């Protein structure tokens, strides 16, 4: 018999970890993209 509290604990942990990792990944990607776009903007001006 599966323990319901275990199911809840595992599921919620995965949901939070997944979304936090997504948040971090998006933050990093945003910073990289902004840097790339800024430097390509500077190259065009140069």
């Amino acid at each position, binding site marked *: 018999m*599966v323990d*319901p509290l275990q*199911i*809840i604990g*595992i*599921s*919620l942990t*995965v*949901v*939070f*970890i*997944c*979304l*936090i*990792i*997504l*948040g*971090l*990944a*998006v*933050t990093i*990607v*945003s910073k990289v*993209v*902004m840097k790339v*776009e800024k430097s390509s903007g500077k190259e065009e001006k140069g």
Partner: protein
Amino acid sequence: MLLPPHNLAEFLPYFSGIGIKEVIMIVIGLFFIYLAIRKEFEPLLLVPIGFGIILTNIGGGMGEPPYGLLYLIRRYLIDTEIVPCLIFLGLGAMTDFTPLLARPMVGFILGAAAQIGIFCAFLMALALGFPLKQAAAIGIIGSADGPTTIYTCTKLAPEILGVVAISAYIYMALVPLIQPPIIYALTTKKERATYMPPAIRPVSKLEKIIFPIVLVLIACTLAPQSTPLIGSFAVGNLFKECGVVERLAESARNELMNVSTILLGLGVGGTLMAENFLTVRSLMIFGLGVFAFVTATIAGVLFGKIVYLATGRKVNPIIGAAGVSAVPMSARVCQVVARKANPRNYVLMHAMGPNVAGVIGSATAAGMLIALLGG
């Protein structure tokens, strides 16, 4: 010798084999159509569902195996995950992730927090005597996401699909009634009046293109059982954002979405036969549905307060309620409540972040429940 009928209960079967229970179901179907047309309660789903209920209960076997049309729709399009995933594809093609990408950490944390409601309802359903898989299917009503609810229920407890789906869509329509009292109860006027500047960080096209790819890589790795939903969502969003397949994006959010919605509504309505709807357990499921929404809102707002404090009182805690993924109604509720506390406030775009993150959170939660309960 055939005796004449003495009362209505004996009279009806002479016409089409329907009894009093079927008549009650037909009235219920008409009531859902009334709610949809007159009160505009989720009309896109409640009109076909209501009519599906009428068709399946009026006799003629439309909802019955092996050849009933509504049964076939359910069997080959819903039970096989096809229609819920196509709806998610259409939703992805309609969703603008800009508010979430502008402030991802706040959005994702609040989107995750609201999913606590799913598990509160799950526990309560277990306490009320529902078996494990049915309790999980009932709990997922708290996701406030129709396709996710239907997808999960089909996998875990198809026998209660109709009631669970109706419960989910009705409460989604009632979000403007359910959420505000909870928000008022859990926040002070000062907190509700927290001003958030209306403008959000500009998000580049490249970020919006990369996001669905990142979403699939991360979410589907951590919760593989959510891949059908999240993958469909992501591909629809990529159609929208890449800019080179505009006709696919148009079809996804219009024709595909509309056809899938019709089939989903009729298929779900077709499951609602008298013998599996007119039971005490159905009433309990309706009660648990509102419990799921209430606890999801409570969890979202409480986490909103944590974020409010953690950010030095810069984030309005109301937007935590938008983690309940009734898009965009929850976000609009937050906007209305915030404006009442501070007429300068415009939190709609900020609330849309957790609102769309909640869709991802609920699909992930659904995937985990399916994985752990062996759906």
